Every structure is written in C-alpha cells, then in structure tokens.
C-alpha cells in the first residue's frame, strides 16, 4: 500500500479523454517519476492530485484519506507540497518573508488571525526560516526582493518553502524546464541531497530523461492518458513499448 494511491481515475475535457483509467501507486519514501510525451496527461494527473481538478470517476487516496473534493490548501495541509514548472514565489516579499510564510502555515494552519503581534517577535518562526535559508544556501539573500533573484535561486527558494512545511509528499512539475545544463545538475544534486537527509516521498513529472534517470527509483510512463508501463529505470530504458511510444522521439529532441 503506497502513500499515494490513484485508482481508476478518468478525466474528460469535452471530447478529449485526458486521463483514462489511471492506476498509480507511489511507495512511501521513494522517488517516483511520471514521464510521457506531450499531451500524455501528466499535468492533468498532477492537477488532480493537488485538488485543482476533480476527476470524473475514480479515487485518490493520500495516506488512507481521500483528497477528492478538497481545496488545494487543504490538501497541502494534509502533507502534499507542490513545486511549479515556473517557480511560484512571493515576488514582492523578501526572501526571508517567503521562508516565513510556510513556517507560519505549518504552525498556525490555513487561517490564523494575528494582527497585533509582531513577526519580528516570533523567535521560533524566525529561527526555523533561517535554518532553512542556511540549509538551502540562500541566507546571504535573506533581505533581497524574491523577484530580483536568478531563476535558479527562485527554484531553490520554492523548494525550500515546500520543505519548510515538512511535507510527506513533494510533487515536482518539470522542475528543470527551461534550465541550463549546470542549473539542471544543481537541481538534481539538491533533490538527491533532500532525499538523503529526510524521510520524504518525491513524485516528479519530467521531460528531461537525464533528470529522470538520475533520480527516479520507479518510473511510470503515461501515453494518451493511460499508464503504459511502470518499472525501475533500468527496465524502462530497455522496454520496447516505451522506446516506441516515447524514448525514441525524446532522444532525438535532446
């Protein structure tokens, strides 16, 4: 029984069957990659997992509880954090404040009315944010406007914000899309380090085979909204159906 269990999920947009009978089980403390050509339904599946879309049929269970019908913030409070394809951070706020907000969300829940106490007096929150900033090597930028940072730093910050909530499942949506090789490798190293240091399940949707094969322990290949095959990276590499559906084209593109 995995930490995330997707059973018989269907999602239709008008005449398009975006997801057809998707079954997926992600084991606790694993790194699971979901790959597939464009239009395979990867993003639709991710949006179902985080509560942005509701499937037509099927069930999605996280740690024994259904996530269906819950709002994104409720699903996040259950322990699922999401990293976006283009980094979503609080651009107008300082890096430190960006770090503080998830710390407060973790401690105070989805809403807490505290309009009188000063943020500067919340020692435990400041310490926790600082700890994360140091760990993610962002401490020297703590007073910077988050929007003014480089793309790579924004990505680090976004991942740091997700980790500050101690999520049980971290979802990454093409975390290296549009990155240069060096930045991509840095992100891979960062994710490897995160995996080593904490008990966390990572699900990653990715186009870049280099990233997938460096990180994943299990890989699910989606094609036309349906899982084609699920196996270890070595087996996936040699799988004839996968080569036919996906890898052949991708290697040319890369």
């Amino acid at each position, binding site marked *: 029984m995995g930490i995330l269990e997707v059973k018989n999920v269907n999602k239709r947009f008008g005449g398009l069957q975006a997801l057809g009978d998707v079954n997926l089980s992600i084991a606790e403390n694993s790194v699971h990659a979901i790959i597939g050509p464009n239009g395979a339904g990867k993003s639709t599946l991710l949006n179902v997992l*985080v509560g942005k879309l509701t499937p037509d049929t099927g069930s999605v269970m996280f740690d024994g509880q259904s996530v269906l019908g819950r*709002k*994104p*913030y*409720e699903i*996040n*409070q259950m322990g699922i*954090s*999401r990293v*976006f394809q283009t980094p*979503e*951070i*609080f*651009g*107008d*706020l*300082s890096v430190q*404040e960006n770090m*503080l*907000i*998830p710390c*407060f*969300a*973790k401690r*105070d*829940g*989805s*809403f*807490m*009315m*505290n*309009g*009188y*106490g*000063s*943020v*500067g*007096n*919340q020692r435990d929150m400041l310490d926790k944010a600082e700890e994360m900033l140091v760990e993610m090597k962002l401490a020297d930028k703590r*007073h*910077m*406007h988050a929007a*003014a940072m480089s793309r790579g730093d924004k990505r680090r910050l976004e991942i740091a*914000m997700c980790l500050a*909530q101690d999520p049980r499942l971290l979802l990454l949506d093409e975390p290296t899309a549009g990155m240069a090789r060096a930045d991509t490798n840095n992100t891979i190293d960062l994710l490897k380090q995160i995996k080593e240091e904490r008990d966390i399940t990572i699900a990653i949707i990715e186009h870049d085979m280099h990233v997938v094969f460096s990180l994943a322990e299990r890989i699910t290949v989606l094609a036309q909204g349906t899982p084609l095959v699920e196996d270890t990276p070595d087996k996936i590499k040699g799988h004839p159906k996968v080569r036919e559906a996906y890898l052949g084209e991708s290697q040319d593109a890369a």
Partner: protein
Amino acid sequence: MLGLSKKDAGLLIVVALLCLFAPFLLNPFPEGSAMAQFNGGYPDLMQRLVIFGIFAIGFNILFGLTGYLSFGHAAFLGVGSYAAIWMMKLLTMNIIPAIMISVLVAGLFSLLVGWISLRRSGIYFSILTLAFAQMSYALAYSVLTPITGGETGLQPKYTDPRILDGALPAGQSPRANLFGLDMKATTQLEVGDWVFTFNAGYYIAAAVMLIAFYLSMRIFRSPLGMMLRAVKSNQQRMNYTGLNSKPYTLAAFVISGMYAGLAGGLLVAMDTQVGAERMFWTASGEVVLMTILGGAGTLIGPILGAGFIKYMENIISKINESVLEQWFAFMPDWMGDFMVAIVYPFVGKGWHLTLGLLFMLVVIFLPGGLVEGGQRIGKLFRRKKSEPDTPDGKTTPAE
C-alpha cells in the same frame, strides 16, 4: 516602544507632533495678509484632515496590503455616520457610544458586503463593491427615508428621546460632547498678527487617528499583515502553501470597513448631521485617490494623501475671481486679464481640475505616491553627503 521598532516608533512620534502642532503649522500666514487664505488651521478643516486620514489608513489596509481595490468604501463611512446619529438621537449626545456603534455597524455591514464581493477578484470585485455602495446610497436617499431622512438627512433635534441625557433646557440645541466637553469648544491664541485656534473636537479626532495609525502599524508588522501582502503577491502560491486566502482577505476588508465606520462616526461627532451624499460613489473614489496619491501600501502615505486632498479641496476651492485679480494686479491690465482667464478654470469650483492634473503627474512620475517623492528627495541629499558610496540598491521593500 509600544511593541514597535525604533523606525516605526519614530514615525508615530512625528505624526503625533504634527497633529499636536497642526494649529500652528497650518496657520503660517498672519491674519489679514494676502496669503491668509492659504491658512488651513481652522477647526472644520483640521477635523476633516484627521478624519479622512483615518478613512484612508483603513482603506490602505485593504488596498495597500492585499491589492483588492474597493470602490464602495464610502458606504461603510455612511453607515457608520447614520448609526452614530441614531445613537445621538436615542441614547446620548456623548460621542463615545456613537463612535462605538458606528464601528460595530460598519463592521457588520462590511462583513456582509465583503463576504459576497470577495467571491470575485480584480475588476469584478471592484464593480461588486461599487454596486453595493450605490445601492446603499439609493436606499439611504429614498427607500429608507424613515430611517435615513432621505434627501434632507438627519440631525439631532430638541425633541429626540435621548434616554441617557436629561431634558435639555428650553431653546438649547443638542450639542455633541465628550462627558460634557463640547466638541465645538475652542480657544484662540493671538501672537502678533497671527491667530491660532485650538479646538476640542480636533484634538479628540487627532487622538483617535493616532490610535488608528498605531493599530495599522501593528497590523502591517504582524503575521496577518505579512499574509495580506502574500495575497497581493501570489495567491496561487498561497493556496499551495496550505493557506486559505479568503478569510485573510475578508479580515482585511472588515478591518478597513470598521476604519471607515470610525471615520463616519467621528464626522458626526464633529458636525452632527448626515446626508446620503456621503455614500455617493465619488466619495468612494476620493479615498482611492487619497491612498494612491499618498502612496498605497506605505504606512504614512494615506495620511499624507488625505491631508493633501482635503487641504486642496478647502483652500483652492475658496479662491475666486477677485482673489485672482488681486494676485495679478501688479501686471499690466491685458496681461493680468490673460492670467486670470488661464488660472480661473483651475480654482474655485474647478479645483477638481487641479487635483486631476496633480493626480496624473503623481501616478506617471511617482507611482509610489508622495512617499516615494519624499524618499527620492531624501536619497538625493544622502548621495550628496557621501558621494563615493555606491547606492546599496533595494534592500527593503518600499515603505
């Protein structure tokens, strides 16, 4: 001090001193001189400066922090005013219950309006608030005439019950007071040609504004304030960080509605009458102008904007043709007439033209409002002092 950082405490003290010495600062010209019409140190105007300051401080908590642009905040001011005047008719002419009930009623009303309007964001939110305000205006102006007095408005009358106050002596009209201290009580100080006026109502309103300003500072620096800025910055990230942005935004809306109600109650405390025009959409637009002109999202900006606009409204609108003729009397006749013809549309009833021009200039050249103007001047001086230093760039978000 008072749980504020040194910088914020300094700002609070500066504002307090400005309020304390406003009767001097706003009256720089001797009585009877040609410049005396620019004196703003009379009670009616000073009261308006601080009361609309409160209105704008509250509006800034919603607009400046969350970015939600309400076009209907005058409705809360109006509702607060009506609530206050009913307290004065039914209970007592003491302003304390009137002000308390105005905050309470405006808070409840803004809870209702906010709860509905905040289902949408952006322009649709603005339109919804505008619709609510105009409906409130229509209700006050005609439908609810028995409660609001319709076109004529309301004021305390001799015959009102006022169950807490004893019967008034015959022929005396009811006067707003604070435990017996008349709001209209004034003392004048004459120094040479200068006349300075100290008014009880003004100082009470200014004290309330200082409290309101202090509370807004606490909100700005609190976790709530940080969350509200997060709403403005990126709601998507907020929702995926386990935060429900709806109640945060609604809290900001209700707080700003209560500030508007407080301003409405104080207006009644200073001048015991209310009419529906107080809720008209132009009044809602005015507080938007004040906040943007002063600097939205800054602490002091809304106070500056409110002061600036109310001063302009009162002073420039008083300038008439004969005053202009006096000004240009030193020129040859044809030139003087020409100048009067050019300047005349911008003064008197045309003061809105001047305001519009200034507003355009500020928005185009100083998007951060008057506060940004002040910061730029400050930076200019600092750079002159320490030329070789490289400017350290943006270290903190603009305040």
